[in-house]
Each structure stands twice: as structure tokens, then as C-alpha cells.
């Protein structure tokens, strides 16, 4: 996973398959970086995600909580069409983070 930081925006480019197993290292890497960088915006870019189960939803909700505690806000961008159903089922859109 590539993470970039520019103009107070930290972007994590998620890749491949997100499940319960793969979510754990993604979570700790993003949380570690955002704690040290303290970005105003944490952006999760889903363009490289090929598969995701509800662990991906947990990942979004957890990052929403974490970045809110740090005083920043979350943006979720470039969700592939194939993930539309699980995203809409989850109600995560009501957080207003999906761009």
C-alpha cells in the first residue's frame, strides 16, 4: 500500500483484496502514519481494490473514528463499481465520507 502526504492530505492507496486477514496490517499502517502526520484529511483511495468483504466497511468506520479523534476528516474515493453494493448495504454513505 502506498501512502502519500501533501498539503495536509494523507492518501492511502488500498490494493488487492480486503478481508479480515489483510485489514489488520492496513489498519495499523494507516493509523501509525496518521498519528505522526496528523493530516487534516485522510483519504482512502479504493481504485486498486479487487475484492472486499465487510472487513473493508470496518476499516472505513474505524478510520473515520480514528481520524475524527485526531481532529481530521475522512474521505473515501474511487470506489470501483463492483463494490457499490456492499458500500450501499453498509450505510457507510450516511457518514458523508464517500466522495
Amino acid at each position, binding site marked *: 500500500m502506498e501512502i502519500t502526504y501533501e498539503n495536509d492530505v494523507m492518501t492511502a492507496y488500498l490494493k488487492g483484496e480486503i478481508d479480515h486477514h489483510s485489514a489488520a496490517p492496513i489498519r495499523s499502517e494507516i493509523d501509525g502514519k496518521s498519528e505522526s502526520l496528523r493530516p487534516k484529511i485522510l483519504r482512502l483511495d479504493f481504485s486498486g481494490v479487487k475484492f472486499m468483504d*465487510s472487513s473493508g466497511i470496518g476499516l472505513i468506520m474505524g478510520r473515520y473514528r480514528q481520524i475524527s479523534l485526531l481532529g481530521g476528516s475522512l474521505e473515501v474515493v474511487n470506489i470501483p463499481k463492483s463494490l457499490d453494493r*456492499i458500500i450501499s448495504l453498509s450505510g457507510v454513505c450516511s457518514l458523508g465520507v464517500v466522495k
Partner: protein
Amino acid sequence: MNIVNQMDLSFPAKSSNESFARSAVASFILQLDPTINELADIKTAVSEAVTNCIVHGYGYGDGTVYINVKITDKGKVIIKIRDKGCGIPDIERAMEPLFTTAGDEERAGLGFAVMQSFTDKIKVSSTVGKGTTVTLEKNIIRHRNSSGGADLGHGE
């Protein structure tokens, strides 16, 4: 309804096997010539069920996850995913969206909601102290019978 093919799979309840489990089931179902969406639905539902076995059934402890997949002559796929773990005391409650017992684990509590939404039928049977079986059914639309026009280039 006749069973035309089936397979059995068992593996240790390790989270690194989640990806293997859903891919193996998806590979087996390829013989029905499913659409990419149907395949993704099955992979997602299986991933949820297997994760439940590992996280809840065995609580990250040792154990074996058992999967049986049957294909019927009508193009229906029946997937049984079973653990011999702790069992579920209140199935109805466990199936409520957003209900989760794994509080610190960042589980969204959507596993059963996803399984329900991504398959045609789900049955959960569980005995406390003995384990849980989730049965998922999904009808794979056969392209030669399809009149919806959504499937291209598969006519016979």
C-alpha cells in the same frame, strides 16, 4: 433436485486461509459459467461465513473449518460452512445488522447482512458448545435460458 457435483474442503481456522477458501469455492463454481457479479457475490458471502468461524466460532483458537459445496441440475449452488466451535446462543440477535460481539476488533457487524443480501437463501443452525453451520444457496442464472439480455455472447 439432483446433485450433479460436489466438493469438500477442510482447513485450519487461520485468517490467512480466508482468501484461499473463497477462491476455492469460486473456482469450483466456475463450471456453471457464472457472471462476474455472481462469482463476486459468492466470494463475498463465503468470506463472511469463514471469517465468522475463525473470529467467533473458534475465537482465534485452534479448530477446523469445513466447507461442502453442492451443485444441482437446476444450477443451484448450496454451500455449507461449518465449525465445531462455541456456537451461537441467540441466532436471531447474531443476525441483526450491526450486532457484533467483537467490539475491539473493528468488525462492522455486517457479516450476516452481507450473506443475506449476496445469496438467495441462508440458514443458520447452531448448538452452543458444539458449533455452527451456515448454509448458503444461490441460483446461478443459466445463460442459455436467459431472456433478460444482460448476458452477452453466451447463447447456444
